C-alpha cells in the first residue's frame, strides 16, 4: 500500500468501503457463470447505500465477497478490488479478513431463523463474540449479550438471552440477529434483505431500528433488497444491479424522481400504487439472463422497451450524468432530461 492511499499522509480520507470492478465466477462442472461482471460501489461512514435488484443480480454475492464469506468453490473472485478504509481485502490473508469480520464489518441475513444456530441459546451466540474475540468470561459475556438485546429493544432481555432462536418471534429473531452483528461495534453493517421474511408492520420496525442504530453509531450501512418501497425512507444513495453489474447509481431522491435506466424504471413501475387503482400492474417482461450466457451488448436489451441496434452491440459503461448520478444506459441522458 502506498502512502497516498492509506489515509495517513494528509491525503483525502479513504472511503469506508470501496468496491471496484469486481468480477466473480461460479464454476461448476457444466459451466462457468459470470455472477459479477465489474461491480463497483462505495459507502461512507454514517451513510446508507441501498443495493437494489432482482434475485440473481449479484447483490448478495457482492456482499459475501466483501465479507470474505463467499463459498469457494464454486465462487471465485477473479478481478477487481475491495478496499476497507483503503486496505485491499481480496489479496489479504484469510486471518486478516477474519479479524475484520465482526470487529469492523458485520452482516445480517434474510432468514434469521436459519441464520441462527438452532441448538444454542441466543445469548450464547451473541456472547460467543465477547468470549472468543475479547477474552471475556462466560458470565460477563452473557451480561454483555443481554445489554445488546436491550439495545435492539427486545423486552425482558435478561430472560431472553437464555432462550433458543425457535422461542423468538420472527421480528425478535431479526432483532437478535442485529444485536449479534453489532456486538463488536463494527463500522460497516451489511444487511442482506433483512426484512424480506417479515410481515409489513415488523418490516417498518426493523428498518427504523437499523436506521436509528446507524445514526447513533455513525456506521456505514449497505441495505440489500429487491423492494424499492423498503428503502425509500432510509437510503441516502441507491445502486441498482442487473446481471452482475451496477446499472444505475444515484442519490435516492433523484432516482425516485427520475430513473436514469429503463431497468430502474421497470422496477419502480412494478410497485403497486394506491393512486393508480384498477390499472394493471406493470412488470418487467422476460427473465433475468442466464449468467453462463449473458447476451452481447447491454445485458438488459432483450427485456428493454427502448432497445436499439446499438444496445445489441455495445455494452454501455456506467458513466456520470450529473454530480452523483450514474447510469449504464446508452439513452440515459434522454431518460433524465425528458419531462
Amino acid at each position, binding site marked *: 500500500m502506498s502512502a497516498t492511499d492509506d489515509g495517513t499522509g494528509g491525503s483525502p480520507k479513504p472511503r469506508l468501503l470501496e468496491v471496484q470492478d469486481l468480477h466473480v465466477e461460479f464454476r461448476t462442472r457444466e459451466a462457468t457463470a459470470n455472477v459479477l461482471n465489474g461491480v463497483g460501489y462505495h459507502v461512507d461512514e454514517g451513510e446508507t447505500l441501498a443495493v437494489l435488484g432482482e434475485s440473481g443480480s449479484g447483490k448478495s454475492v457482492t456482499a459475501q465477497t466483501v465479507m470474505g464469506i463467499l463459498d469457494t468453490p464454486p465462487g471465485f473472485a477473479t478481478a477487481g478490488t475491495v478496499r476497507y478504509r483503503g486496505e485491499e481485502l481480496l489479496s489479504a490473508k484469510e486471518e486478516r479478513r*477474519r479479524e475484520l469480520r*465482526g*470487529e469492523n464489518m458485520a*452482516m445480517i441475513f434474510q432468514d434469521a431463523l436459519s441464520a441462527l444456530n*438452532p441448538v444454542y441459546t441466543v445469548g450464547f451466540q451473541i456472547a460467543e*463474540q465477547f468470549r*472468543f474475540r475479547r477474552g471475556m468470561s462466560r458470565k460477563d459475556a452473557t451480561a454483555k449479550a443481554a445489554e445488546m438485546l436491550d439495545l435492539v429493544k427486545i423486552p425482558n432481555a435478561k430472560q431472553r438471552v437464555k432462550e433458543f432462536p425457535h422461542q423468538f418471534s420472527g421480528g425478535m429473531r431479526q432483532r437478535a440477529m442485529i444485536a449479534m452483528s453489532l456486538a463488536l461495534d463494527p463500522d460497516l453493517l451489511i444487511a442482506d434483505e433483512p426484512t424480506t421474511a417479515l410481515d409489513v408492520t415488523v418490516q417498518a420496525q426493523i428498518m427504523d431500528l437499523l436506521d436509528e442504530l446507524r445514526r447513533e453509531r455513525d456506521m456505514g450501512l449497505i441495505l440489500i433488497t429487491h423492494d424499492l418501497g423498503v428503502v425509500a425512507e432510509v437510503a441516502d444513495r441507491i445502486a441498482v444491479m442487473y446481471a452482475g453489474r451496477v446499472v444505475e447509481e444515484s442519490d435516492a431522491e433523484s432516482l425516485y424522481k427520475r430513473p436514469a435506466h429503463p431497468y430502474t424504471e421497470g422496477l419502480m413501475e412494478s410497485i403497486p400504487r394506491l393512486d393508480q387503482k384498477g390499472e394493471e400492474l406493470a412488470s418487467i417482461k422476460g427473465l433475468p439472463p442466464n449468467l453462463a450466457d449473458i447476451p452481447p451488448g447491454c445485458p438488459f436489451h432483450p427485456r428493454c422497451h427502448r432497445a436499439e441496434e446499438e444496445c445489441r452491440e455495445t455494452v454501455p459503461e456506467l458513466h456520470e450524468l450529473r454530480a452523483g448520478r450514474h447510469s449504464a444506459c446508452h439513452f440515459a441522458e434522454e431518460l433524465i432530461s425528458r419531462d
Partner: protein
Amino acid sequence: MGRYILRRLLQLIPVFIGTTFIIYSLVWAIPGNPFAGLCGPRGCPPAFIDQMTEQYNLDQPLPVQYVLYLGQLFQGNFGETFNGIEVGTLIQQAYPVTLKLATIALIFEAIIGIAAGILTALRGKGFVDNLVLAATLFLIAVPVFVSGFVIQVVFGVQLEWMEPSVGADPGIGQLIVPGLVLGSLSMAYIARLTRTAMFENKRADYIRTATAKGLTPRRVVSVHMLRNSLIPVITFIGTDFGALMGGAIVTEGVFNIHGIGGLVFSAIQGQEGITVTGVVTLLVLVYLLMNLLVDILYAALDPRIRYD
C-alpha cells in the same frame, strides 16, 4: 426435563406389557409339542408331562399363563428350563459377555465412524472422500459371517495373532477382534451418516453466520457444525447399541462366544419357551431403556424437541 423423562418412563409400561405378551403368545404358539423328543425315542412318561404342565401352567388359557408368568417375572424369577436350569443363571453367564462385546463394537464404530465422517466432510471431495466411500461400501456389502470367517481363518488360524475360538468367560482382549467385526457394518453407516450430515450443515446459513462473526474455523466446525451434525449420528448409535445388547447371533457363532444371541438361538431351536421368553423380555427392557436414553440425549442436543 424431569417431567419429560418421567412421562417417557410411564410410556414404557404399556409397551413392555404389549411386547412381552406378543412374545409369550408367539413362543407358545410354535407348532409342535415341547415334550416331543425331550425324553428320547420312547417319549416322556405321563407323570412327567403332568408335572411340567402344572409347573408351567400349560393347562391354563394363554392370558392366564401370561399373567402368572409376569407375576413370577416381577419377583425376579425367570423360571427354569425343562432341564431344571434357572434361566436367570443362564442370563447371568451370557449377559456380561454380550455387554463386553457390544461395548467394544460401539466404541470402535463410534470413534472410527465419526472421525472418518468428519475427515471426509472437511477435506471435501477428493482422495480421502473416495477412499472412505469405497471402504464403507465394501463393509456394507460384505456380510458379517463372511468377514468374520475370513478374519478368523487369516488372523486366527494362519497368522495365529489371535485365538480363533473364544470360548467361555472371555477377557476383553479376546473379544477385541470379534468386536471390530461386529461393529464394522455400523461403523460404515456412521461414517456415511456423519459425512452426509456434515456436508449438509457446511452450507447451512448458521455456519455462514458463525463465519461472518469472525470466529476461527476451528470453532465454527467444532462448536457450530459438529453438534448439529451429530444429532442423527447419536440417534443411530443409541439404537444400534440397543440392538448390539440383544446379542449377535452370527458373530457369536463364528467366534464361539457364549453370549446372549447364542442363548436365544439355541433356546428357539430347542423350543425352550421359558428361556426364550425370559431372555427376550429382558432384551425388550434393555432396548426400551436404550431408546429412552437416546431420546434424552436427543433432547439434550437439540433444544427444539424438548418437552416442557
